[in-house]
Structure formats: structure tokens, C-alpha cells
């Protein structure tokens, strides 16, 4: 049972690292299961995903509507400096996942 839990977290983390490979901001991400990863070396804020579905939605369409909605509905939390947190939109502006990549993410997360 324990090893399955571990592989779930690992799977999510590998998806996130793939998505964030070109991101310049440094921050921490905390997942609904409590696991945390760090992007960059000096995290300025923590982005907490309280909900798996919101996480999936944001990965598929990382825009102001999806992220804003998730924030006001408490599916995500921003801890620390809110301005630094909001600036990650600039990082994701250049994020253009191909359809195949999106499908792969959905499938990966489906199994989680």
C-alpha cells in the first residue's frame, strides 16, 4: 500500500517538473496529499493544490480565469507574497503544451 502511495506522488511530481522546466520563478508546490516539491532554489511563496481536479484544470489551461476561479473556491491557496505568486502568470504565458502532452498529463493524473 505504501509503495503505491509513493508512486502516486512521484507521478504527479514528475508531471509538474516537466511543466515547470522553463519556469523562472522559485516557489514551492504542496499537493492535496501533503507532499511538497520545490521549483528553483529560493521559494518566494507556496502554491497549494487542495484539489486534484483543479490541479488538472490549471495544467490544461493555465489562464487567469481557471486559476482565479480555483483560488476563490479554495481549491488552491497562495501562501507568502501574493505579488510574486501572481507573477507566475508570466512564466506560464509561454507555456504551450501540445495536444499530445495535454492528453498525456490527463492520463497520468487519471491513474493517480
Amino acid at each position: 500500500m505504501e509503495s503505491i502511495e509513493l508512486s502516486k506522488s512521484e507521478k504527479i511530481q514528475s508531471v509538474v517538473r516537466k511543466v515547470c522546466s522553463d519556469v523562472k520563478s522559485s516557489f514551492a508546490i504542496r499537493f492535496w496529499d501533503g507532499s511538497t516539491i520545490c521549483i528553483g532554489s529560493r521559494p518566494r511563496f507556496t502554491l497549494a493544490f487542495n484539489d486534484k481536479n483543479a490541479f488538472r484544470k490549471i495544467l490544461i489551461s493555465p489562464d487567469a480565469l481557471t486559476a482565479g476561479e480555483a483560488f476563490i473556491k479554495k481549491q488552491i491557496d497562495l501562501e507568502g507574497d501574493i505579488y510574486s505568486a501572481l507573477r507566475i502568470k508570466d512564466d506560464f504565458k509561454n507555456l504551450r503544451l501540445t495536444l499530445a502532452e495535454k492528453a498525456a498529463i490527463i492520463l497520468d493524473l487519471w491513474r493517480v
Partner: protein
Amino acid sequence: MHDVQKHKKQISFHYDVSNDFYRIWLDRKMVYSCAYFERGDESIDEAQLNKLDLICRKLQLVPGEKFLDVGCGWGGLIIHAAKNYGVYAKGITLSMEQFDLADELIKREGLGSRCEVSLQDYRELDEESYYDKVASVGMFEHVGIKNLPLFFGAVKKVLKEKGLFLNHGITKKEKWQSRDPSSEFLDKYIFPGGELDQLGHVLQVMEDNSLEILDVENLRTHYAKTLRLWVGRLQRRKKEALRFVDEETYRKWIIYMAASALSFEEGNISVFQMLGSKQTRAGLSRMPLTRAYIYENEMIRIF
């Protein structure tokens, strides 16, 4: 009538949240628009007072004049103008909460004989060539771009010839796209029906309605500072705020104000004071030769 009802609902959505909630993080006079910083380190109370007075000086208010504020909020400007400039001031708003509090504050100040607030849409203004001066602060963003001719037409109607109009509000660097995700977010959760126009187009519609442009001032830096102060105050008083609104409302205001602060800093949006004069007949406006009038006769303030 349908449009007026819809507009009223849209305004209510944002402004009838709870006066107690707004009181927590706005300044003492509850002025919900860009403040004006003369030194840069002023408190929000001082900077909002600066702004109210700046508007009165730009409008060159003189005792006895008739002054209208379209979208008067909780009455900060009409009360300031009636009290310190001796004008007969009327404010209109579509928000019931704003109307109730403004009415109460006017009475509390003993200004009942020369200051009033009315629950009214700008399209219902029927006084013709009646006002010497008109202001509208942070309101035309709610009107909708296609309705701007209606709005400025209404201002033209109620203003006397050569009367001054100060339009203060937010503009956008690029053309408004209603399908843009951030526009959709604003429309759905924050300002239903709100649209930001480009400065050039706003000025053009003013000119089309016989409002000669006399002066335009960019206050972008001031709004970024104002928003950062509001966000900080609301964050520090979150617990108190949650006594009056739910967590979702608190989060809506935090996210929209913080994101707006960044947008002003980045330059995607801006805020301007546009001073115009109703000029339907040939002849010079009553504009002084220099801008000195704006900085002379500053109100003596006691803190």
C-alpha cells in the same frame, strides 16, 4: 428600463457586498478609487483626501455653484465639496448600500441643505444645463464601451455651457477583449458588465459630445500604490473581514486588487483624470492660462 435594471444589478453585485467590509480596508471617508500621493509615503487617509481636493481644485469649484457627482460611492467627494468649497452638491449612485450610508453621513455632517444623494441611473438625469460642474470618478468603467456616447451625452445635457467636467477612470493599453480569460474572470466574479476602453477612444467620445478636452493627467503610479495599500490592509484585517463576508468574497477582493496592482505596474492598464468643458458654441473656454490653479489654494488640512 430593462437596461437600467440590469445595470443596477451589476452595480449591486460589487458595491452592495457590505459597508462594514469596505470600511475595514478603505480610508476613513471610504473613497473607492485611485488616491493621490504628493510625497509618496502618505497614509491612505491622507492620499484620498489629497485626491478629493485635487478634483475640487481642477474643477475650480466656487461657493454657490451646482455640482454633480455621477457614481458618488459613499459620498466622499460631494461631502468634501459641499463642506470645503460651499457648492450645492448632488451625488447619484445605483448602490443601495452606498445610498444609505452617504445619506446618513450627509445628515451627520449637517449638510442636508446643500448636499444630497439620490439612487439614480445616469440615464435618468433630467436637469438640463443645470450644473456648473460635474465629476465622475471610477464610474465610466461600468458603463460599457458601446454606452459611452450615452454617458457623455448625459453629462453634456446636464452641464451648463462652459461648465467643467472631470472624468476620472481606468483605461486599457490594448483594445478590450471580452473573451480574454482575465476579462472573463472580471466579468464573472468582480465587475459584471465592466469594460475598459483605450484613452484615445474615451477622449474621442467626449469630444463627440461637445466636451472640449482641457487637461489629461496620468495617475497610473498612484493606483498601483493605492491598491497595494488596500491589499495590505485587507490581508492584515482578514479575520475582521470574515465577520462580514465569506471567505470566497474575501478571496475575490484580494486576488482582483493584487492582480490589478500588478497590471498598473506593468502598464497594461492605467488611470486618467480627463478635464473637459462643455463647448457647444464658438468662443474660448474659461481655462486659466497655466496649470497653477491646480496647485494654488490647497485646502489647509488638519491631521
